[in-house]
């Protein structure tokens, strides 16, 4: 599954806010981190605010902050603001879909869509934060295993 650019940006942004829900920060900070224009990101954040996931903070040091429940908001809730992660049966839009081959293919593609939706609907922001922490720890463990032994100073 490949997400559209705005959808990916929305997920990155929401997870940045989720990592520190008490903090509010401007679009420019996230835009710089992910290498996109602040203008482009502002549109994505405005859509998230309209959906009730973020809230804009006015004044000096303003920006956005997260106002949703980390243990309830799932990846599919964010994705569906920007795109449909799977089309209903018979809506693929290709000319062969009403043929026996097209219908059989539709059954298989529908299976994949169901699994995709089930996965995205079961992963909350809180679960993603834990997954990110595990990935970070696994990365650190890999680095420490690669470090030469003499670096610890215990080798003769």
């Amino acid at each position: 599954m490949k997400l559209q650019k705005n959808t990916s940006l929305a997920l990155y942004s929401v997870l940045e806010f989720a990592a520190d829900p008490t903090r509010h920060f401007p679009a420019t900070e996230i835009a710089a981190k992910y290498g996109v224009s602040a203008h482009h990101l502002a549109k994505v954040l405005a859509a998230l605010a309209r959906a009730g996931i973020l809230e804009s903070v006015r004044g000096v040091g303003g920006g956005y902050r997260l106002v949703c429940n980390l243990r309830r908001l799932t990846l599919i809730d964010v994705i569906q603001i920007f795109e449909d992660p799977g089309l209903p049966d018979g809506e693929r839009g290709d000319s062969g879909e009403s043929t026996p081959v097209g219908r059989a293919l539709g059954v298989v593609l529908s299976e994949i869509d169901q699994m995709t939706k089930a996965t995205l609907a079961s992963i909350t922001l809180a679960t993603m934060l834990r997954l990110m922490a595990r990935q970070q720890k696994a990365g650190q463990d890999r680095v420490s295993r690669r470090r030469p032994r003499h670096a610890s100073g215990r080798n003769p």
Partner: protein
Amino acid sequence: MREAVPPTPARPRQEKPPPRRSPVRQAPEVVAVRPARRGDLDRVIAIDAAVTGLPKRSYWLSIYRRYSGAGRVGRYFLVADSGGEVRGFIIGDVRDWEFGSPPCGWVFAIDVEPRFRVAGIGTRLLTAICANFRRAGVFKVRTILAHDNTLILSFFRSQGMMAAPFIPLEMDLEV
């Protein structure tokens, strides 16, 4: 000898996920996780019936006979007990070389009384059965769920479970 039956899905039911904002819940109590006793069965049946809308007394009696009591090696039927009241339960077993997999633990039922959810009871139950699996010498735990059972899927995901390298398949048999 262990029966070679495939694991049944963990709570195969349709249930709407709770709203995004957490509702007011019963205050968490002191909860102990312990092996199920015969006297717990009525509460287990009541919790299951309240959640699924389908009382299954004979099924639960059969499960109790197979999974409780001494000598049930690798089989675990645990309950969360708070002040003598059962608030939830979990059932699972160790299965050897089924589906081509080295021995691993399977959780095939878990439930918590709805008004006591979001208080860590499910986590306590899963932690306890995983400790039993480790003591039995297995270091992998699996479960299987209906893909529209978002509530329980989310719970297992929150505990760190990821997609397994298996695909469940089924077909209708002609009558």
